[in-house]
């Protein structure tokens, strides 16, 4: 079998700074008959500092990904694109580099790519746009967008540039990933509402091995029951705050999740990260315990410290 991994140079931090890269935020809109409506990417409460996860908000409260399309646009600026070309760059002198956005929506099992503008060493333009459109019924729950640079055209082969990427389509640089949530309560905690029989809420722990299975809505979820007469007490008058009942549900659910995982994996392993994969249930638990300063020495102390944390936070907690 042929060797298939191209060990070509890609965009490094050093080169990144040299080229004077900057970008606008992604902007979003959808179509209604007769007009387009903007959607706003809102920071997720408690995650404002990282700026990589957002909730898409529609002021009209109409947008539904099952019924409406979604268009996005982004501009990137490269002040000195010439540094990208030639022996110390990432593509040959006569090559052409393209900008593209890779999209992926794990909950809807699909991914794809939107091709944007491209440039070569002679291009005088400094701003490059990439845009795309998702048809209705494609996305579910959340999706991520990653802006990339790729080799669009190889150009003339030059012996000195043998080490550089030569095959069109090769990824040359990753300009960052942003995750957008379509719905939810402004929290990345997997909370769902269904109409069903039974009590007001339940928590599902569906993982096989908490050390490796991801902390996502397939393995962990809190399910609220819209049919229950007390459902209306879950809503808070203030968007930014959790209702007292919701807070209690979250505290109990986290306790169940922690205690269940700790019955399968020693707590010490969870805290030290022994054999624990990134993004796994155990990793999330380690994060909860550290960030919320939880006292896991006994069930009652855990319950106490969870509520202390949630009261202090007031609003969204993740």
């Amino acid at each position, binding site marked *: 079998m042929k060797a298939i991994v*191209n060990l070509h140079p890609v965009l490094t931090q050093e080169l990144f700074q040299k080229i004077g890269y900057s970008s606008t935020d992604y902007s979003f809109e959808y179509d209604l008959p007769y007009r387009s409506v903007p959607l706003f990417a809102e920071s997720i409460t408690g995650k404002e500092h990282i700026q990589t996860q957002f909730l898409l908000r529609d002021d009209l409260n109409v947008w539904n990904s099952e019924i409406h399309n979604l268009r996005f646009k982004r501009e990137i600026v490269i002040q000195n694109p010439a540094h990208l070309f030639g022996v110390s760059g990432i593509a040959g002198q006569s090559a052409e580099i393209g900008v593209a956005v890779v999209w992926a*929506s794990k909950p809807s099992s699909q991914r*794809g*790519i939107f091709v944007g503008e491209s440039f070569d060493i002679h291009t005088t333009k400094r701003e490059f746009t990439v845009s795309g459109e998702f048809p209705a019924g*494609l996305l579910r729950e959340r999706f991520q967008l990653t802006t990339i640079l790729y080799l669009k055209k190889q150009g003339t082969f030059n012996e000195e540039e043998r080490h550089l990427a030569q095959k069109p389509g090769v990824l040359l640089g990753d300009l960052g990933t942003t995750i957008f949530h379509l719905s939810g309560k402004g929290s990345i905690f997997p909370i769902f509402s269904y109409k069903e029989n039974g009590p007001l809420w*339940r928590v599902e722990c569906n993982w096989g091995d908490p050390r490796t299975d991801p902390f996502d809505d397939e393995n962990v979820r809190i399910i609220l029951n819209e049919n229950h007469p007390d459902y209306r007490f879950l809503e808070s008058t203030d968007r930014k705050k959790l209702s007292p009942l919701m807070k209690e549900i979250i505290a109990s659910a986290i306790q169940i999740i922690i205690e269940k995982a700790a019955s399968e994996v020693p707590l010490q392993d969870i805290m030290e990260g022994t054999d624990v994969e990134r993004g796994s249930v155990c990793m999330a638990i380690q994060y909860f315990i550290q960030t919320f300063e939880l006292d896991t020495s006994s069930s009652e102390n855990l319950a106490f410290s969870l509520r202390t944390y949630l009261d202090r936070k007031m609003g969204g907690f993740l």
Partner: protein
Amino acid sequence: MIEWKSLHKSELRQIIASWTNIEMVKWDAPPEFEPVRQRLLDLFNTVKSDLGIDTVEGKEYQFDLRFGIGLYTLLKREFNLTESKASNDSMWIYLGIKVIPDIVFWRWKRNSLEERFYANSRRIWLKTLWWYIHLSWQGDEQKTMKILEGNTTDEIVQLVERSGPFGYRVQLCRVLMRKYGELELELRGRGTKLFRRAMKLNTARLSVIEPALYEGEEEGYVKELFNDLIGNQ
């Protein structure tokens, strides 16, 4: 609009455990599901009589392919089943357990029934069939049937279970299935394991290459993929 309810895993486990033989398997959905059930039963009976079979043994793939294409077009036409809905396990679990459990049971007997009904997201049988057809779709039923006719249940598994960490590249899958379907049968016989090798090589290449950005886009990419494999036998 029919609402597909979500079911507890403990409830599912109990239901399946009570199904010791096919007489015990009863559908159990509200009356609004009756038309869907009836259409799927009609489809089931048509496929069985087309194949001239009473049991599935030896005709597993032929049954899956025909039932799958029928299921796919029916759900699209009657329910406008979108990709986002089809990626939600709850719907498939409900359809399998409550609406047409007898068909699923007929197909799998007691073999890893939990997996085929609900327990393993990528092996829920109805969901697997839908995605196999969706990822192979060539515009209409006849064209899709034509390129898939020579395959086996192994192709279903290899295609559907290799979604990659972030999901399927639908366009790439469709081109791949078409080009594979157009190859001469002897090239893709069981002995050569060509499809498995192609999917493996594809997975490796995808870590550095985006087929949509390749020369000739997905077409060019897939052509080269198969050329490299066939040239290297």
